[in-house]
């Protein structure tokens, strides 16, 4: 279902440039020698922002019926959230190693 409510091509180029700018920010952050957790958190936030822009504009979900968004988004998020249940055991692996 193609719609006419799309942006002009130049706007997409702008979005592309914007995404590249975020990538540059990520690289700059990397060289600020932040603590690993802070860096990971900020990188994930920026990547999620990029991902969101890509889904909405490049993949054009913004111009589809909302039902598409509500079909795909919750289930994916669901899996991504619950996979986090395995972190306690990752830390267990670090703390209870047999061979030090």
């Amino acid at each position: 279902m193609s719609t006419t409510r799309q942006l002009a091509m130049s706007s997409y180029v702008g979005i592309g440039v914007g995404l590249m700018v975020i990538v540059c920010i990520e690289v700059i952050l990397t060289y600020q020698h932040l603590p690993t957790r802070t860096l990971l958190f900020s990188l994930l936030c920026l990547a999620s922002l990029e991902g969101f822009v890509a889904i909405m504009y490049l993949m054009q979900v913004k111009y589809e019926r909302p039902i598409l968004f509500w079909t795909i988004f919750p289930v994916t998020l669901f899996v991504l959230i619950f996979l986090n249940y395995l972190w306690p055991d990752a830390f267990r692996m670090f703390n209870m190693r047999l061979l030090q």
Partner: protein
Amino acid sequence: MAGKIFALIVVLITLTTAYCVMAHVWWMPVDISVHGPKIDHQIEETVLVAGLLFIAGQLVLAAFAFLYGGVGGRPKQIPGGAKPLIIFAFLLVGTEILALSFIGSKAWGAVYFEAPDPASMRVDIQAGQFAFYFRFPGPDGKFGSIHPDLINEGNQNYFGLDPDHDPDAKDDIVTAELAIPVNKPILLMLHSKDVGHSFYVRELRVQQDFVPGLNIPIHFTATQTGRFEIVCTQLCGLGHYNMKAYLSVLSQGDFDDWLKKQAAAQ
């Protein structure tokens, strides 16, 4: 007719099962641990709760199959529709679940959330295909470190100890049978030499897997003397069925003698 036969069979199965469970035709052996009564209590509680649901569910099914087979006339729904059923499920099962979780978490916590007694006796246990080996720290109270490259069944260096360079390892006592003093808190450190295994002593109400690469602690106190079987319950290969050792719970005096004898045999 078919409905009546079905009802009869279901009732027979339900009663037989209920009898077998209540008469303890097959049942747990007598518990010998301090935390065990909590687990036994939890199992009995669950037998009661789940058993009632089982009997009620099967009997209602049987009754309906018995009563409403091929009766003429217009069928009717139960009064009130699904709402009472759903409320019933939420209230009754929900309450049962909350109660079971609450009491059950205490039984679980008694094993896993409470820190081991600082005065516990520490024993190291290593599982490998297809045997358990146990290690006591000896007079110095310290375990020698493990060197996997030195593990060798042939020269009986099961733990990969290096007594020539490691003073801690010199007096470690390695045994093929686990003996512990009665009424003394025990801290077992579980590790595996090769693949996954499990430590299961029915009478202790303890089951814990060995995770290769990790040191898993588990603590308990045995309250009765006797000789019990330790079996492997995690599939570990072709000899899995035959992987076992014995746990001897001894009086303190007997245990000291046993340990001396073992130390002398090293």
